[in-house]
């Protein structure tokens, strides 16, 4: 049996080995080796540490320090409410109450009881989804049109000043509808797909079907290009650079930069498998990577260079958005109930507390997008 299992030929194994060694070598280069003390010294240190910790915890001052450590979660001197955004544009946020638009001056408007939403290409409208309905909304909450479909999710709007399309997924599959709510069509049957409109090429929808990155002109329904995005295990997110040349596929342990024109993949290995989200900066020069407890910046021209840490927090972070001018990043910090605005050069941080309460939510509100300076 052993001989038979070992004799199964796996074509391409050596390429896989070379790729993996490249990833490991890069990860190893970033690791700082730890000098290990001798065994006897380790035991002595361990005994001393345990004794000190027990003594500290049992004493009243020690207990007070522990309590204080537990309580210090979040950015100090955070504003108690969102008085303004640090950059131009508006936020789209989904809370338990529904979808909200947050204006630059901090004012908020609840658009309605929708589950998820995204901006129209120029930020003048919002497309929102709830269980069995897709809706196009004005920014004051007025409903332009609705479409009843089962299990609507993942709406994405793209196009020009005069002609737009909305892609979305329902139980039947991947669908597209014109921006005025007409001509709703099925593009592909149901399956596990991530979608993102390709910038610079109106009506070309990028679709990540497992390891294949497919580009389809939704008007002609013709698939105009196919490229490999590498092994499909654990894909979190898929998006495009603003020039539409590079697709970013996010995995928990690495970023893959797919150039569909050349059918090549550049892999940016990350030290641990804790990536939550990643997004290109508006000018495409950087990728912000949100890990479980930190926000780092990767230079797209030098992806193997040291990553710039912009922010680190003591609890899980979630939600990531670039400001439209690319100067600021917004990150959510649920355990602190804070939004943290971080300047992309790492030199300033602004935080806002009581986010859930302000958006009438028991769970931490989800950041759906930061769009479009007026």
């Amino acid at each position: 049996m052993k001989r038979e299992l070992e004799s199964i030929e796996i074509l391409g194994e050596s390429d896989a080995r070379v790729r993996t060694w490249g990833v490991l070598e890069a990860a190893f280069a970033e690791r700082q080796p730890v000098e290990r003390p001798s065994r006897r010294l380790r035991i002595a240190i361990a005994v001393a540490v345990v004794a000190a910790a027990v003594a500290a915890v049992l004493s009243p001052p020690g207990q007070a320090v522990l309590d204080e450590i537990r309580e210090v979660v979040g950015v100090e001197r955070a504003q108690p409410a969102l008085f303004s955004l640090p950059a131009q544009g508006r936020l789209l946020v989904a809370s338990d109450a529904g979808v909200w638009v947050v204006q630059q001056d901090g004012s908020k408007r609840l658009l309605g009881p929708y589950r998820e939403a995204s901006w129209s290409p120029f930020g003048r409208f919002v497309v929102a989804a709830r269980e069995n309905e897709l809706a196009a909304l004005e920014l004051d909450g007025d409903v332009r049109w609705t479409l009843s479909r089962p299990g609507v999710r993942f709406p994405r709007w793209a196009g020009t000043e005069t002609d737009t399309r909305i892609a979305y997924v329902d139980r039947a599959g991947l669908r597209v509808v014109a921006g005025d709510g007409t001509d709703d069509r099925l593009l592909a049957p149901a399956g596990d797909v991530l979608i993102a409109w390709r910038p610079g090429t109106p009506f070309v929808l990028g679709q990540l079907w497992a390891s294949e990155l497919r580009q389809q002109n939704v008007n002609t329904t013709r698939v105009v290009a196919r490229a490999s995005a590498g092994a499909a295990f654990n894909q979190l997110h898929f998006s495009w650079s603003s020039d539409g040349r590079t697709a970013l596929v996010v995995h928990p342990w690495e970023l893959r930069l797919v150039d569909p024109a050349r059918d090549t993949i550049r892999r940016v290995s990350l030290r641990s498998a804790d990536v939550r989200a990643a997004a290109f900066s508006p000018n495409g020069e950087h990728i912000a990577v949100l890990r479980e407890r930190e926000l780092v910046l990767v230079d797209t021209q030098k992806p193997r260079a040291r990553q710039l840490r912009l922010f680190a927090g003591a609890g899980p972070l979630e939600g990531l958005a670039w400001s439209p001018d690319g100067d600021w990043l917004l990150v959510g910090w649920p355990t602190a109930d804070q939004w943290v605005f971080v300047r992309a050069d790492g030199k300033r941080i602004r935080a806002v507390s009581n986010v859930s309460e302000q958006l009438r939510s028991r769970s931490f509100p989800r950041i759906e997008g930061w769009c479009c300076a007026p």
Partner: protein
Amino acid sequence: MRADRDERARVRGAQRGSVSDLEALFRTHWPRAFRAAYLVTHDAGAAEDIAQESFLAAIRALDRFDRRRPFGPWLHRIVVNRAIDWTRARKLRSEVELIDSMPATEVTAAGGETFTALARLSPEHRAVIVMRYLLEFTPGEIADALDLPRGTVNSRLRRGLDALGDEL
């Protein structure tokens, strides 16, 4: 014995930052790690990711690794558990509709009858066969690695072998 000593020396070297020692560990253990993941998942892309991620996990845990333990079984245990998780997760996703439109996999296998027969087993049965006969774990070690009663391991081995025998 000599091999064990060499491996401990390589782990120690890697812990101190030696790339050549890490490479030696990688060269020794990659073939079986990749093959084991492939035989459980039957998906070459997933096998590459699983083997790669298992090695990355090993690098991350290198400073805490107990050098008295053998490196290979520790790594292979991670690989097989991840491969089983992947296979279970994939079963939950409907990929049936995608088969026509999927590109050719980056890596393909030419395994003949054994490979085909193995594919007909459940991932749990494939995993114990692979651990026992490719990775050479004892039934007790398999039970420990997969967190299963030893009787379950033995019955899966028996049933798996019977099914393979029927197919072959």
